[in-house]
């Protein structure tokens, strides 16, 4: 048992993650071919239903549909649909917490591939200044709020406004890069159009096209560019504290050497500088555990599942991974 744990702690999490992501991508994008379908299961990652052959369903899609109901029906059958949908999402999420983003979300994986490509070309990445970073943190919550309100607004008059037209149905999906990018992997380019059937749709799908362009260029210059704006990430974070998989820190053992912050793709500074929190997952964190693998202090950072350590920072593991590189 001790040997196994040591072997795991000595392992290269990034390599494992790369392969796991590949596997998850196959499952969630092409699973349909093998009649694998988590489809009835709503998952907390962008397994987009606009992909015909998918093996799972992004929860934001049903969520937007289910919210499109008069509030008076909240306690009727439709309300129950909303509730069970939410519960499935929550159960799936709680299991792996934000590791859905680091290990399974197809859109996250695509961004990591783009990063690899950039690195191959020897082109440097850019980073945000702290002010930009903190300002842009909020965008995903705004998107999430809009997503909820616009869905509700079609069947209810909110804030004394008129009910919105049905063209706002799954309005977030219209601007989501999941819809335009992921079907490309099955050779389906049909989403790459602007829908001129109504004014609302023209604007939304036009925005969608712009977002798609931004998605590719963004991911090329900034690691996980889109994730920092993702409303799914915002929704997840609300429940992150309940996750069974956790990222923990022991501030007493931390030397603030900054290695963890150095390697973090999304630039989470707290991972190095926060010495108080023991549950250290921040809203932009994707639980890729790169920080754990870069921490040289025994047990300072660790991932736990139901309280049991699954991957832990060790001096030996650190030097093993860092030595003999390049």
């Amino acid at each position: 048992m001790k040997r196994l744990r040591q072997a795991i702690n000595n392992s290269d999490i990034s390599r494992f993650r790369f392969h796991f992501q590949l596997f998850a991508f196959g499952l969630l994008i092409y699973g349909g071919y093998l009649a694998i379908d988590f489809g009835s299961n709503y998952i907390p990652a962008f397994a987009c239903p606009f992909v015909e052959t998918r093996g799972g369903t992004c929860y934001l899609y049903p969520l937007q549909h289910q919210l499109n109901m008069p509030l008076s029906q909240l306690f009727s059958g439709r309300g129950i649909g909303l509730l069970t949908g939410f519960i499935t999402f929550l159960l799936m999420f709680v299991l792996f917490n934000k590791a859905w983003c680091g290990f399974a979300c197809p859109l996250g994986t695509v961004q990591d591939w783009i990063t690899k490509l950039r690195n191959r070309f020897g082109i440097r990445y850019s980073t945000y200044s702290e002010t930009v970073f903190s300002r842009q943190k909020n965008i995903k919550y705004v998107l999430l709020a809009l997503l909820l309100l616009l869905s509700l607004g079609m069947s209810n008059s909110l804030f004394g406004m008129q009910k919105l037209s049905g063209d706002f149905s799954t309005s977030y999906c219209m601007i989501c890069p999941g819809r335009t990018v992921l079907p490309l992997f099955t050779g389906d380019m049909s989403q790459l159009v602007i829908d001129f059937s109504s004014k609302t749709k023209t604007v939304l799908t036009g925005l969608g096209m712009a977002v798609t362009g931004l998605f590719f260029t963004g991911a090329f210059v900034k690691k996980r560019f889109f994730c920092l704006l993702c409303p799914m990430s915002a929704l997840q974070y609300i429940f992150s504290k309940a996750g069974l998989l956790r990222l923990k820190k022991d501030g007493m053992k931390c030397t603030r050497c900054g290695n963890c912050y150095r390697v973090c793709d999304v630039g989470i500074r707290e991972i190095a500088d926060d010495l108080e929190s023991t549950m250290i997952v921040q809203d932009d964190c994707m639980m890729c555990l790169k920080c754990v693998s870069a921490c040289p202090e025994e047990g300072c950072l660790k991932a736990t599942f139901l309280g049991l350590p699954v991957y832990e920072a060790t001096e030996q593991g650190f030097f093993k991974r860092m030595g003999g590189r390049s």
Partner: protein
Amino acid sequence: MHTERFERVKKSTNLHFTMEADEALRKIEDFPSNPGAMGYFYDLFRSVYANGGSLTHKGTIIGTMCVQVPEELILAAGAVPFRLCNGAHAFDQAGAEFMPAKACSLARATVGMLHINRSVHKERLGMVVVPATCDQKRKAGELLREMGYNVYILEVPSSKNSEEARHYWQNSVKRFTAELQHLTGRKITKKSLGTAINLTNEARRQFRRLYNFRKISPPVVYGKDALLVSNAYFFDDKERWLQALTDLNNELELKALKGESVGNRHAPRILFTGSPPVFPHLKIPLLLEQSGAIVAADEVCSSTRMLYDAVAYDESALYDMIPSVADRYLKPCTCPFLVLNDDRRRRLKDMAGQFAIDGIVYQIFSGCHLYEMEQRTIAKTFADSGIPLLFLETDYSQEDTGQLSTRIEAFLESIKARKRRK
């Protein structure tokens, strides 16, 4: 006339220095059951200091005045890093011509040495890198430039807590990289830097092995030996040093397995901190261990602070590796030149626990305001911990030895009495 006088001073200073070094080595070796693998280090110091500490390396040598200089970059540019920080009283006296009597011994001795032995050093040192850390080092840099050395001032932020400070430092390191390449005419590549990082990280890995052996109680190695090993890193060929330390570690590992130990089983375990002990000025650690204590851990820039942290980078490309190297020198730094130095307090506290420390000895070189001023906060940090502290203000002369030894003995007695009561 003038040169004649200088030659006389030079001769006598170097003679005094050799005697001093000899005396220190004699004391260091005068302990029972020294590890066989320490022989390499004793011989190294003897051979190097018998002829005045000459620079025998091939290629361009870059002198460094502080641990803040990123040695990976120097190595990657095909040069040899050589830490100049000096610990000799003879050179301290020679430096009195340039720096005030109230300046710190270490800075003064370094300037003195570079003055006395300027003919070789000016020829052999391609550059002297002076990080703008404490006042003494900064002004020493100006003095050296006047003496005709090719001085490079490496700008360092005075705090490490903001992102701005971090970027300022990263840019400073980038400029330094360009200067190094200019000097050696060799381009730093991702391959050469990768090799340099591997080498230094391996050195730190072995250093940490030694560091961890020092946690064992009863102790398997004396602090004086550990300090000598890290002091050797200042000037020794890195690969050779690495091999010698690996041998020492392997020997200590066996020793620990067999349950062998050095000194008294119940020797008070001391954490040494403050101004850095640099050979031959290992006065206080030696006095401690001669009086039956064990210097189980140190938090000084001539040892642990120099060799504990390793570089971690993400992408194998210069744009990521160079800032990673820069981060290694700023983020974990606990030098008191930094403002808001809570990390030093935390580090000491953590070490006191990990090494089962009985008492802390805090060396302050007369004239070093920074360490002197942090004295209060460190004392406060340990106020309720039951771990006593001893502050010792000293310099490189031997005049205070008697007085120091009395205070040290009293301190150790009180620790022993406390341990007995437990």
